[in-house]
């Protein structure tokens, strides 16, 4: 394992210390590293709280700030945070208008956020599940929440900033989640610091198609294909799943997994954009970069969110976080 670290036990807290120090103009760290929150709260605004296992930086801490989240709870690497953390975050940022938990659909996250929600008042939850890598199934767990979560957090965050109330915020978040589809592909495995070795073995000429953001296996192992062939399979899966809705304006988000440079992400963007536009979608908004990562994994995901006037305006609304900033 080749990483910049001092000890696997302190990777997370040292990194959080650095993160909050580098963004001390907008962020504050909670006691015992339980959460990261906005420095200045907006009384009367619904508080948005997210969180999940670490290793996906800048998600979620990098999305805390004006126009997005009020707090984020970082778990250990790839491990949901505890109800304690969420309760502390609620206490720190709920100014009376209630809290919305935005939870990625993983067993661990859902159970921990559920427990916290039950133990607090005025908390409502929504779950993101945008990953179409694995076919719809009769299994109870449903789809994974992946990069589309960022889109939900941005749009719901903007609406909260503008004063939308708790219930409509949840409905908006579910509408955006419902208009969002993602799928990823890995060229290499990630390496969890505490494990000290790659999560999975993968050959020189192989890729993991439909990989999860924790290195979970996807649809299948395949031989490494051209960028166009990879983009085509992912885009067609997204379009197929959206069905009739895949028409008109959309946000195209190419997300790097941590080990893939921008040059390749823009190349994938070019390929994906052409495919979508040849299929009736008009790419009106774009985001390219490593935002929902899987530690040092080489790979990327493609996310498409169908937009309307309201969600487009909310996407464009000012935001000031460590990772996303515009309009201010």
């Amino acid at each position, binding site marked *: 394992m080749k990483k910049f670290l001092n000890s696997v036990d302190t990777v997370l807290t040292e990194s959080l210390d650095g993160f909050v120090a580098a963004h001390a103009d907008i962020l504050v760290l909670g006691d015992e590293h339980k959460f990261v929150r906005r420095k200045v709260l907006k009384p009367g605004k619904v508080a948005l709280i997210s969180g999940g296992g670490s290793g996906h930086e800048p998600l979620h801490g990098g999305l805390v700030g004006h126009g997005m989240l009020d707090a984020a709870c970082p778990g*250990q690497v790839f491990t*949901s945070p505890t109800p304690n953390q969420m309760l502390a975050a609620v206490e720190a940022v709920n100014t009376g208008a209630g809290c919305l938990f935005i939870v990625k659909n993983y067993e661990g996250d859902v159970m921990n956020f559920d427990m916290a929600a039950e133990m607090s008042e005025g908390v409502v939850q929504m779950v993101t599940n945008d990953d179409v890598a694995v076919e719809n199934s009769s299994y109870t767990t449903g789809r994974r929440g992946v990069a589309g979560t960022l889109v939900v957090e941005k749009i719901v965050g903007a609406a909260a900033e503008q004063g939308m109330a708790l219930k409509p915020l949840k409905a908006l978040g579910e509408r955006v989640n419902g208009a969002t589809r993602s799928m990823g592909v890995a060229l290499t495995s990630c390496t969890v610091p505490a494990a000290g070795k790659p999560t999975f073995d993968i050959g020189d000429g192989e890729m993991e198609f439909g990989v999860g953001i924790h290195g979970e296996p996807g649809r299948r192992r395949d031989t490494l294909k051209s960028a166009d062939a990879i983009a085509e399979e992912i885009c067609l899966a997204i379009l197929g799943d959206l069905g009739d809705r895949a028409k008109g304006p959309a946000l195209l988000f190419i997300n790097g997994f941590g080990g893939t440079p921008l040059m390749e992400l823009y190349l994938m963007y070019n390929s994906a954009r052409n495919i979508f536009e040849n299929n009736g979608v008009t790419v009106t908004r774009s985001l390219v970069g490593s935002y929902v990562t899987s530690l040092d994994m080489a790979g990327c995901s493609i996310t498409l969110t169908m937009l309307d006037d309201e969600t487009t305006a909310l996407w464009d609304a000012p935001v000031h976080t460590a990772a996303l900033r515009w309009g201010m």
Partner: protein
Amino acid sequence: MQQFDNASAGDIVLSIADRIIENRAYLSEIDGKIGDGDHGVNMAKGFGMAAERIRGNDMSLATAFDTLGTVLMTEIGGSMGPLYGVMFTQFAETIEKSSSIDARTFSAMLTSGLDGIQAIGSAKVGDKTLLDTLVPAIEAFDGANADGKPFPEALDALVVAAEKGRDGTKDLVARIGRASRLGERSLGVLDAGATSCALILKALALGAKEKLQQSATASD
């Protein structure tokens, strides 16, 4: 009637923790095949933290279970934090009032742990989870009791059934947790939670048998 003292039996939890910590790499490796490869890491961290708080403190079994459950629930997170957290917390609550533990209390303890897990997760037997170890283990224990077998023999039956249940997860398609997205690809590998659960139950059973033996010797 065969029973052992709740007081000072907290060291059973230490031996459970030892087994989990010994199997850290193995449990993560299994999880890596169809999950995210962190099961051993998470488990070893939580059980290790709990063991540190228990060691040297002459705890009752109830207090030790409560310590373990609380650590898991409040400091570990992940899937196992809540699930094992609630299981051990329920174990503790059930035996809290009993100064000594007989087969009936032991069975009630296991059952309330199982109820706790099922209250927060939606898994059923056959979904390829730790329930595929825990449920048949409890059934075997209760069956042996109903057949009038002595407490230690019922504990042996529990271990055999737990390990059989664990091995059986190889032939199951996961229907819950990360692995459930793999469909048929989840066949042919053990479930990580089922494997850790078998380790826990075996260490618990061996610990209880030892205590029973000690009580028997003491009352001789």
